[in-house]
């Protein structure tokens, strides 16, 4: 669990970021599989229907589970209802934040924006700052010093990993960020990716959220009950485990400082319940290669390009079986990573672009 001095400077204001800019890793041209324009147009097409259906199920289920949980509040019977409610609040909101932030969930813009705002509140991510940080994540995916969304830095902090399954550190930092933004302060790191013109909106939204949380806490105090917080805020902790579990698989244990998503991203086949919660983000190589393809078309995109991609992990369990040992090795050797093998049908990696990659371990 010990963290030691790293060769990598993950600060967006640090040396690694400057090196990435100087060497052309930042804002680089990334590899993508050739897909005929006609096919890509079909895949990119937007539709409201799948997202309206899924949003109705998501929010409707939450209302129902919250209602039943509240009815049984005070008895052990309420627990399974709130556990399920928590996953829909604290994990499904992550994928809704993500997809709606891209603008690809719905065809109708205001629907994307509405669900985006709701999801951002639940997952505790300021809709302005996180839209911009995610933009940077897509420009410079797992480029050290450029990507603000690297989930597991090297060497991995295993205690932090475990704590985040309960949302503890993320929620703590989110609250700090919210209070800071509500005070009118945009941090130096935030300023590296949030344009000045957008910063007042970030501040305004933080203030609205602060009022909501203060009102929730006040309700809890007035009622002498945890229930208001179990409904608003705390699910971000007790329901976080699913989005952390699936999120770690996106890039965990894979290469950094490369410009081929086949090397730094992972596609994992998942069960239909997880895919509903995760909105098909298990097709993660596909999503990074073609972020304009909406979630409901990712399985078709996968079928079309899988010949050019590493073989997906067959399950979440399989993904963790390879990823966790990689994390443990990275504790001792931060340059270790899992190199994704390509099938014979794939175009090879351009090794000359990745000359600095450390050799894989056995």
């Amino acid at each position, binding site marked *: 669990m010990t963290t030691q001095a790293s060769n990598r400077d993950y600060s967006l204001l640090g040396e690694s970021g400057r090196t990435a800019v100087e060497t052309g890793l930042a*804002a680089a041209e990334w590899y993508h599989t050739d897909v005929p324009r006609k096919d*890509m147009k079909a895949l990119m097409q937007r539709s409201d229907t799948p997202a309206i259906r899924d949003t109705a199920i998501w929010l409707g289920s939450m209302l129902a589970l919250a209602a039943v949980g509240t009815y049984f509040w005070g008895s052990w019977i309420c627990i399974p209802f709130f556990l399920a409610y928590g996953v829909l609040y604290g994990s499904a909101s992550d994928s809704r934040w993500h997809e709606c932030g891209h603008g690809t969930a719905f065809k109708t813009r205001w629907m994307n924006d509405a669900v985006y705002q709701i999801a951002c509140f639940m997952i505790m991510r300021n809709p302005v700052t996180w*839209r*911009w940080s995610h*933009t940077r994540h*897509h*420009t410079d995916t797992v480029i050290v010093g450029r990507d603000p969304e690297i989930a597991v830095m090297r060497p991995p902090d295993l205690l932090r990993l475990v704590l985040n399954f309960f949302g503890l550190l993320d929620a703590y930092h989110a609250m700090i960020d919210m209070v800071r933004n509500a005070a009118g302060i945009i941090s130096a790191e935030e300023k590296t990716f949030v344009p000045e013109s957008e910063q007042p909106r970030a501040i305004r939204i933080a203030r609205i959220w602060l009022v909501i949380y203060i009102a929730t806490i006040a309700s809890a105090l007035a009622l002498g009950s945890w229930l208001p917080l179990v409904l608003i805020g705390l699910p971000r902790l007790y329901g976080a485990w699913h989005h952390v579990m699936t999120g770690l698989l996106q890039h965990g244990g894979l290469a950094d400082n490369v410009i081929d998503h086949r090397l730094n991203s992972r596609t994992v086949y998942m069960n239909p319940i997880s895919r509903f919660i995760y909105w098909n983000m298990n097709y993660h190589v596909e999503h990074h290669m073609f*972020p*304009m393809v909406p979630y409901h078309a990712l399985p078709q995109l996968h079928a079309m390009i899988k010949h050019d991609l590493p073989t997906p992990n067959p399950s979440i369990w399989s993904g963790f079986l390879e990823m966790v040992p990689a994390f443990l090795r990275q504790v001792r050797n931060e340059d270790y990573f899992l190199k994704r093998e390509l099938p014979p049908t794939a175009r090879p990696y351009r090794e000359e672009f990745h000359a600095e990659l450390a050799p894989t371990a056995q």
Partner: protein
Amino acid sequence: MSDNWVEVCAEDDIDEEDVIRFDHAGRTFAVYRSPDAAFFATDGLCTHEKIHLADGLVMDDIIECPKHNGRFSYKTGEAMGAPVCVNLKTYPVKVEDGSVFISI
């Protein structure tokens, strides 16, 4: 306004509600055909991070950048919201004898 009309392609080379890339004299452009079969042209790179808009999605009168989903009106060049903040430059387009021309 320049009178330098440059031939881009045949009308039918661009599908309705679609876009193509056109490179000329070291510059790159995006040429669009709207759902009602009118033609438009803009600079070819997104003003956010220099990605070719011709790889993006045309929806009605909007072009969406394929990298970060930034949106512009391809008719006016107006940036429609984050992450795009700077408008696109537009160029006059005409169709003559079945060919599309832009003035650059």
